[in-house]
């Protein structure tokens, strides 16, 4: 029988197995050695590998990111963790000016094998500064790879690959995806970066979704399937470099693209995907739409937060309208996503 484990357990297993395999791998970050262990993702690692290789850090994102880069230059392979992606704003100088640029500006004479884990929060009132998804900021910068897995299988395989990669890799996690389970082989395996995954094949419309929006889009797809509509759901998995070939091949078939990004739309990843598709299909003929966060700061109170994010019902309605404009749209799931209902705080 296939083993099913949660995404957070898959991440812990990836770290454990890579640390076992390669003594250069270290895990650092605020709280990685405490009793909660980053929602279980780092539990037990310090006991097994020692305080030299697994250590808590002072609250100094800028400096500690620089320390991680220096350690990488010095022959280690650090995995630097951040319990919220919002905190990366404090580390932008080191990530953008150094991590991403060292290989190039030093003419290929160094490498920076660094993994930066960043967790996007949602629900239970995460509010303005615990909910941001900034993957597009980093995808804008040459020299840094950005991965955003949405399944436990991809989380383990991509994290292992990210640790083995000789370049800086931003590994974006979503707090609600942490809870999701899927089949995960117990042995170590690497999922190549830069390859999109077709989660469900379909013929009438392509949904490209990221992060938690993959889960919402899958629910939308299930609803539409019952109504007789055929939706292909693609998870890019890697934001940068982006596997456009898989998306373009899908569009050849469906002619319709709905991007559902786990982020704001303005100058975002959704705009990038559509721009590349437009450039690839110069004759036109493709129908485009995108969904994402409302163009406001994320509110804390639940009733407004619910309006802030796209959900399966609205995704289904938008997709159906694109396929059958003017016709009554199939009724999407009315209930809240179970991972949101289940999620209890305080954090």
């Amino acid at each position, binding site marked *: 029988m296939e083993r099913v484990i949660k995404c957070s357990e898959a991440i812990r297993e990836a770290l454990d197995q890579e640390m076992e395999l390669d003594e250069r791998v*270290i895990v650092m970050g605020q709280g990685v050695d405490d009793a909660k262990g980053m929602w279980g993702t780092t539990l037990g690692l310090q006991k097994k590998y020692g305080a*030299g*290789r697994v250590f808590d*850090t*002072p609250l*100094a994102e*800028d*400096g*500690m*990111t*620089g*320390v*991680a*880069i*220096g*350690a*990488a*230059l*010095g*022959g*280690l392979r*650090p995995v630097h963790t951040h319990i919220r992606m919002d905190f990366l704003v404090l580390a932008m*100088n*080191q990530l953008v*000016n*150094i991590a991403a640029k*060292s*290989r*190039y*500006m*030093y*003419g*290929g*004479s*160094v*490498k*920076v*094998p660094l993994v930066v884990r960043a967790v996007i929060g949602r629900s239970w009132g995460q509010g303005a500064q615990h909910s941001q998804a900034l993957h597009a900021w980093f995808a804008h910068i*040459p*020299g840094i*790879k950005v991965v955003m897995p949405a399944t436990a299988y991809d989380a383990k395989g991509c994290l292992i690959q990210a640790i083995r990669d*000789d*370049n800086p890799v931003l590994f974006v996690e979503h707090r609600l995806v942490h809870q999701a389970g899927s089949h995960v082989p117990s042995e170590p395996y690497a999922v190549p970066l830069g390859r999109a995954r077709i989660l469900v094949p379909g013929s009438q419309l392509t949904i490209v979704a990221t992060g938690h929006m993959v889960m919402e889009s899958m629910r939308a797809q299930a609803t539409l399937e019952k109504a007789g509509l055929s939706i292909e759901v693609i998870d890019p998995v890697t934001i940068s470099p982006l596997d456009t070939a898989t998306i373009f091949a899908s569009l050849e078939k469906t002619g319709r693209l709905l991007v559902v990004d786990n982020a704001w739309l303005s100058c975002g990843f959704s705009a990038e995907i559509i721009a590349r598709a437009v450039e690839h299909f110069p004759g036109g003929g493709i129908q485009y739409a995108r969904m994402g966060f409302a163009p406001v700061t994320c509110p804390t109170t639940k009733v407004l937060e619910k309006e802030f994010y796209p959900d399966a019902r609205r995704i289904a309605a938008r997709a159906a309208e694109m396929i059958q404009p003017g016709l009554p749209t199939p009724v999407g799931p009315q209930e809240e996503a179970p991972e949101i209902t289940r999620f209890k705080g305080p954090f």
Partner: protein
Amino acid sequence: MDRSVYYRQMRRIRRVEEEIARIYPSDKIMSPVHLSIGQEPISVGVCQALDANDVVFGTYRSHSLYLAKGGDLREMMAELYGKATGCARGKGGSMHLIDVKHNVMGASAVVATTIPHAVGYAYALKLRKSPHIVVSFFGEGATEEGVFYESLQFAALKKAPIIFVCENNLYAIHSAWADRHAHIHLCDRVHGFGIPAQRIEDNDGEELHAEIVKARRAILEQGGGPFFFEAMTYRWNEHVGPGTDWHLGYRDETEFEAWRGKDPLIALSRELDPGLKARLDAEIEEEIQDAIAYAEASPFPAPSELYAEVFA
């Protein structure tokens, strides 16, 4: 430190910088240069106390450090010319000198940025049980950045095998150190992190050298570290470019004359045996002309090089 070595190292750096200043108006070096003239005793004094496998990190004003640590002069000059044979294949320029073979691990144009790298590298050396140290070089302006304090704090916490060397040349571009601080005694602040800190006056590379020798020994033999030195020095040229800047009025030429009077090269020139001095000078000139010729003769990168080395 042997006085002839001290002379030779400083004289070599001085002459390289003077040649860069001479060439600069020809527009063969089409990028910013931050000359080290006047500050040579600091990097020479420190680097003469290190061994080849010790590691240094620098700043955009690192010609002196690069050469003092043994960085390849030909590759440096070619880098300034933007040539494919440069130490960063023309992609870094004067502000991003690097020579991994000689453990010059890079220089950044963003002030204070390399300080945590030096700490992280030192942490890696300690974890790998390597019998070597790291020296982080930065200016006094860098000590105003938050990352400086974050780096000191973590280095102290982990007893990292690192020496911090602040080259205090009194000015951040055109702004005086004393005008930017209520309390100008830098070492006091560093003491607060539990790090031994000492100020070396008057551009004294020999005293600094003796202290670095002691600190390095304390790190490697007794597990000490980190250590901090504030080395008082003075930049002779403008912040960026080959000229002087007395006309701007932010500092006085008499201040410069006072510092120039303390230039160790003056005393060393008088003291050295004239025959030895003539031989050293001739060697230096020959090496520099060779490096310039190498840079001039080297090819520029091919256009396809634009896309190379984005990723390892």
